C-alpha cells in the first residue's frame, strides 16, 4: 500500500451517550485519491450516442453540435472517440478512432441534423459495438447517451444493452433533455451499466454537462474501487448513500453477517467520493469501541497497481455521563439532512405512484420545509408546488418530478463543481 488513496471517517458525534436501547449512528467516509505517485492521465474511450429525432430540431441540435466540438477539443490523440446518431434508424457518424484530425471531425459533426422518430436501442447497440473496440484496463470508457424523448417499444432491449455495457466496463451517462424523456428507463440504463443520469432543463446545459462528463473521465485515477465495512458484533448496517459527487443510494452486497461491500467504481483525482452509512448499534457499556473497519480496494492502472488496499478503524466512544456527550458534527449533520431530503422526495414519488396521496403530500411538504432551511428556495418551491399538484390533481407534474429528483441529488455538490 503506498497511500495513493486517502480514507477518512467521521461520526455524527465523537462521544455518544451509552443508551439502554439500540441507537442509530451516521458514519461519513471520504475516499479521495491524493495524487501521490500519479501524474499520468489515463486515456479515455468516449462514445457519444445522440438522439437526432425530429423533436431535437433547432436550438437543441445546434447546441449538441457545439458541445461535441468543444469536448473533442479537450481530448488528445491518445484518446478514442466514436459518435453514433439515432432516430428510427442509426448512423455511425464517427467510427471509434483516435482524436487526431479535428478539422475532419468538425466537418462530420456539422452533418448532425434532425429527422425521424426515436428508437434508442439501435443507437445504444451501435454505440456499444464501436466502443467495445477501445475498452482496455488502462483506458476510462464511458458512453454519453443524450435523448429528449420516449423511445418506442424497445425499452427492454435498452435495459439489456445497459447490462451488456456494464459487463464490458462501459458505464452509461444518460442525459435527459427537457421534460418528455422516460425517467425510469434512463435510471435503469444508468443503474445497470454503473453510470449516472442527469436532467438538462434547457439546451443551454448541454455544453456544460458534456464538459463535466469528459472532465470526470479525465480526472479518474483509481478504478474498480469498492468499500468493505467489517462491522463488529452488535452493529448492523441500515442504509448506505453516496453523498459526493452526488447523492444516490448504494446497493450493498452482503458478504457475511458482518461484512458489507459497496461498489464505488471510478475515483476522481482530488475529489473522490464520500459515503454516508447509517448503522444501528446495540446497547454497550460505556467505553471506546471499534464500530467497524473500513477497507477500500482499488486499481490504479496508470501507476501499474492493482488490488491496492487502504484501511481505517471507525471508532466510537460511549459515555454514561451526559455532560461528556459531544455536540453534533455540523458538516456530517448537514449531509445527513440533505440525504433525508433526497429520501423524502424519492419516497413521495413512489407513494404517489401507489396512490397514497396523503402521505406523499406530507412527505413533499416536509421536503419543502427542509429545503427552505437549507437555503434552497427554488427546490423548496418546486416541492411545495408538487404537493399542491398532488392534492388538487392527484398527481405530480413531469417537470416538477424531474426537477426535484435531479435537483436534490446535487444538494451536496461542492461549489467548485457548480462553477465549472
Amino acid at each position: 500500500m503506498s497511500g495513493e488513496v486517502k480514507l477518512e471517517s467521521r461520526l455524527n458525534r465523537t462521544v455518544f451517550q451509552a443508551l439502554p436501547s439500540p441507537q442509530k449512528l451516521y458514519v461519513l467516509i471520504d475516499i479521495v485519491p491524493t495524487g501521490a505517485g500519479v501524474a499520468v492521465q489515463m486515456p479515455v474511450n468516449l462514445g457519444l450516442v445522440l438522439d437526432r429525432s425530429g423533436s431535437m430540431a433547432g436550438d437543441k441540435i445546434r447546441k449538441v453540435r457545439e458541445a461535441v466540438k468543444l469536448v473533442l477539443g479537450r481530448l488528445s490523440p491518445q484518446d478514442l472517440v466514436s459518435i453514433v446518431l439515432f432516430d428510427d434508424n442509426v448512423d455511425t457518424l464517427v467510427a471509434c478512432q483516435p482524436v487526431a484530425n479535428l478539422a475532419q471531425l468538425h466537418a462530420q459533426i456539422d452533418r448532425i441534423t434532425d429527422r425521424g422518430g426515436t428508437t434508442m436501442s439501435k443507437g445504444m447497440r451501435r454505440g456499444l459495438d464501436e466502443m467495445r473496440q477501445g475498452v482496455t484496463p488502462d483506458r476510462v470508457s464511458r458512453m454519453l447517451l443524450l435523448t429528449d424523448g420516449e423511445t418506442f417499444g424497445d425499452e427492454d432491449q435498452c435495459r439489456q444493452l445497459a447490462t451488456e455495457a456494464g459487463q464490458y466496463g462501459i458505464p452509461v451517462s444518460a442525459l435527459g433533455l427537457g421534460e418528455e424523456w422516460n425517467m425510469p428507463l434512463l435510471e435503469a440504463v444508468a443503474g445497470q451499466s454503473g453510470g449516472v443520469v442527469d436532467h438538462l432543463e434547457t439546451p443551454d446545459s448541454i455544453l456544460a454537462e458534456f464538459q463535466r462528463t469528459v472532465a470526470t473521465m479525465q480526472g479518474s485515477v483509481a478504478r474498480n474501487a469498492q468499500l468493505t465495512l467489517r462491522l463488529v458484533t452488535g452493529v448492523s448496517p441500515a442504509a448506505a448513500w453516496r453523498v459526493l459527487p452526488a447523492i444516490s443510494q448504494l446497493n450493498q452486497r452482503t458478504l457475511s453477517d458482518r461484512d458489507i461491500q459497496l461498489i464505488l467504481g471510478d475515483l476522481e483525482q482530488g475529489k473522490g467520493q464520500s459515503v454516508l452509512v447509517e448503522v444501528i448499534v446495540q446497547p454497550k457499556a460505556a467505553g471506546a469501541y471499534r464500530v467497524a473497519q473500513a477497507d477500500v480496494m482499488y486499481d490504479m492502472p496508470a501507476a501499474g497497481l492493482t488490488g491496492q488496499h487502504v484501511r481505517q478503524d471507525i471508532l466510537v466512544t460511549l459515555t454514561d455521563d451526559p455532560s461528556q456527550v459531544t455536540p453534533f458534527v455540523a458538516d456530517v449533520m448537514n449531509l445527513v439532512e440533505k440525504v433525508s431530503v433526497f429520501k423524502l422526495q424519492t419516497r413521495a414519488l413512489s407513494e404517489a405512484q401507489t396512490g397514497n396521496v396523503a402521505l406523499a403530500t406530507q412527505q413533499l411538504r416536509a421536503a419543502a420545509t427542509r429545503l427552505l432551511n437549507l437555503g434552497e428556495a427554488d427546490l423548496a418551491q418546486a416541492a411545495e408546488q408538487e404537493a399542491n399538484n398532488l392534492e388538487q390533481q392527484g398527481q405530480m407534474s413531469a417537470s416538477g418530478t424531474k426537477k426535484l429528483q435531479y435537483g436534490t441529488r446535487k444538494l451536496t455538490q461542492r461549489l467548485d463543481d457548480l462553477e465549472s
Partner: protein
Amino acid sequence: MVTCPTCNAPNDPSAGFCDQCGTSLQGAVNAPVPASFAPPPAPNFAVGGGSVCPQCGAQVIAGEMFCENCGAALGSLAPVVSSGGGYAPAPVVQPPINQPSFGNASAFPPPPVSASAQLSATDGQTYQLSGKTTYLLGRKDDVSGNYPDVDTGDPGLQAGVSRRHAEVYQQGMQWFVRDLNSVNGTWVNTQRLAPNGSMPVSSGDSIRLGKWAATFRG
C-alpha cells in the same frame, strides 16, 4: 494471541480493538479478565427503544435524525442530555438593537414604537425582543447561513425546532406568532397553528416550537 476481555474472542497481539465485538484491547495482554469488564447488558428493547415519531406515529430508533416515514425532524428523540451540562452551548445573548428615533418633524406619523417583549424559555434562556417589529425564531446554522433573532441553540435542535420555525411580530400594539410551515409545529398555549398560520399572543401565553417552550411577556 490476546483474548478479548468482553467476548473472549482470540485476537492478534497487534490488534487495538477486538475484531469480534470492537472492545478496546489496550492493557488486555495476558491479564485475567477483571470483574469490571463484564459483558455489556443484553439488549433491552423495552427500555427507551420504542420511540415513535411525534408527527406520524411511525416507530423510530434513538439517534435517528429524521423520520423515515414522514420526514419529521427527530432531534427531540436523540439522547436526552440534562441541562447545565458541558454539552449545552454558551447562552446566546441577543444584543439590544438601538431604537430608531423618529423625528417629530417627519411628514409621516411615526409608527407605534414597539414596546419590547421577552421570551423566557423553559431551558432557562431569556430572549429580549426589542428594536424590530418581526423576530425570526429558529436555530442558528452556520452551514446554511441561517441566523434567527431568537436562536434556540442545541436545546432547540434536541426539541425539534426548525431553523426557520416561526416568527413573532407586532401589528399596532398587538403581538402575533406565525408558524413558518415548520415540521414539528407551533403552539400558542394548547392551540396548534396551521402551517403558515398566525395567532395573537398576550403576556403570559406559552409559545411552543416542537418540544421547545417559552413564556411570552409583552
